[in-house]
Every structure is written in structure tokens, then in C-alpha cells.
């Protein structure tokens, strides 16, 4: 189960995600949301993962794909409010070296 809600702050689209990003519905929902944003020309994307309880390798792959697709479109995708478990996962997989990870939303938005 996953829910995604978009907010626009300045030129940045914040996507508040809650639930699990896993093989199946979770991954495909994230993929669809990012694709739609890029199609609309919204290429400054901040994924708020504060309420994401679980990510599996498929979900990690989807985050990586979202990152590369956004970069290809000339934009930036950053992560906000990682839970400890998700942060540990990104550390284990060294994806914390790939993503720009933020703890504060205001500062995150200003960083684009």
C-alpha cells in the first residue's frame, strides 16, 4: 500500500509518500508519478520519504530510475526525511552517495 501526494513550493514539486515502495503497486505508483511530473516539465522533485516504512530492492531500483530519468530531463531529484531504516538501506547499498539527502524541507527546497 502506498500513497503519493504532490505539493508545489516555489519551483519545486514535493511528493509526500507514505507506505511501502516494493515490487508491484508501490514501485509502479512511484514510477508513474515521476514520469507524469517529468512529462509536465516539473523537473525539480523532492521525494518526502518520512512516512515510507519499507523499501525493497525493487523500490530502491525505482528510486534510482527516478533519479536518472530526472537528471536526463535536465532536472534534479532529491530525498527528504529518511527514516532510520531507509537511511540504513541507502548506506548499505551506497546509494547515499548517489542521492542528495535532506533533513529539512525549507533548506531542501532552497537547495534546488
Amino acid at each position, binding site marked *: 500500500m502506498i500513497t503519493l501526494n504532490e505539493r508545489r513550493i516555489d519551483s519545486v514539486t514535493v511528493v509526500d509518500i507514505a507506505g511501502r515502495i516494493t*515490487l*508491484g503497486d508501490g514501485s509502479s505508483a512511484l514510477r508513474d508519478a515521476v514520469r507524469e511530473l517529468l512529462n509536465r516539465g516539473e523537473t525539480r522533485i523532492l521525494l518526502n520519504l518520512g512516512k515510507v516504512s519499507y523499501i*525493497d530492492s525493487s523500490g530502491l531500483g525505482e528510486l534510482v530510475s527516478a533519479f536518472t530519468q530526472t537528471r536526463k530531463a535536465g532536472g534534479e531529484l532529491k530525498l527528504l526525511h529518511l527514516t532510520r531504516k531507509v537511511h540504513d538501506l541507502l548506506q548499505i*547499498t551506497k546509494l547515499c552517495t*548517489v542521492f542528495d539527502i535532506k533533513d529539512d524541507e525549507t533548506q531542501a527546497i532552497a537547495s534546488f
Partner: protein
Amino acid sequence: MLPAPCHLELIPRNLRPDDHARESDEVIRVFPDALATMQEQEALILESRVESVDEAERAAAQAALRAGFGEDEAQRISMAVREITVNAVMHGNGYDRAKKVRVEFLVSRQDFVVSICDEGSGFDPSSLADPLAPENLLRQSGRGIFLARAFMDEVDVQPSSMGTSVRLVKRRPIAGVGQQRK
């Protein structure tokens, strides 16, 4: 639908989860809740579909909690099981409904063992790319077995032309200490 009865005697020798432990009087078996009332059941037999992955994950978490692991450790174990089951369903059996995935739990005094077997054509584990290599960091896939190895004490992959068997082992918490050894 409940899986078909599955007895260890039916499992090919190379797919048995823990022959050594099986011969010991100290071995007890842990069954998922759905099977708890059916004492004959010793394994989950899952269809090759995405929902089976969730089922294996849930069963692993419940079994790990009952084996004395804390919630965080149980989640790591269930995530390892999830990742290997994804491989079995997706890469091993190729989502073929005619092919099953067997997930078996075995708890000895020392170890929590999960064996996951598919009916695919096997693969060469040495062909797996290192997901931490700089050139692979942005790859969308290829992290499943790596994560299982990160979360378990042992991960033994046994591919064959009859299917791949993966044996996951986690040392059980020491009684009275309340912490996992790893």
C-alpha cells in the same frame, strides 16, 4: 488456497534446508500462522506471482518473531526472504503459474534457517555484478542477493538445472541476553 502438503522426504537431497539439524532432537519447526493448525505442513508452496512475495515476507517475519528475534531483526530477515523469493518468482520461475516456489522454515536451538527453492533452470551466481561497484550504482536491479547477504549470517545459493535453492541462515538470539549476535 493452502499449499499442498510437503514432507521433507519429498525434497531432493540437494534442496534440503538443514540435513544436520534435521537429524537432531533439538530441532523444532516453525510454521506460518495460516498453517499452524495443520501439523503435517512443513513448508509454504507458493505460486509464481507477485503476491507470493508478500506472503513469504509475512510468514518469515512471523516465524522470526516466534524464534525470538526482535522486530528490527525480524524485518531484516523477512526482507532477505522477500528478496530471494522475488528472484525465485521473477527470474527462476519467470512468473510461470505452473511452477512453484517452496519456502521452508527450520529452527534449531542455534539457527533460524529458511530455504527457498524455485523450479527454474538455474543461474551462475558468479555472473552477479557487484552492486556497490561505481559503474553499477545506478543500475535499477541486482541488489536482491546482496541485501540478503547483508541481513543474514549465511546465504548459500545452489543453482541446478532443476531449479535454484537458496539457504538463508541467521543465528538465533542468545537466551537471556535479549540481543542478536549479529
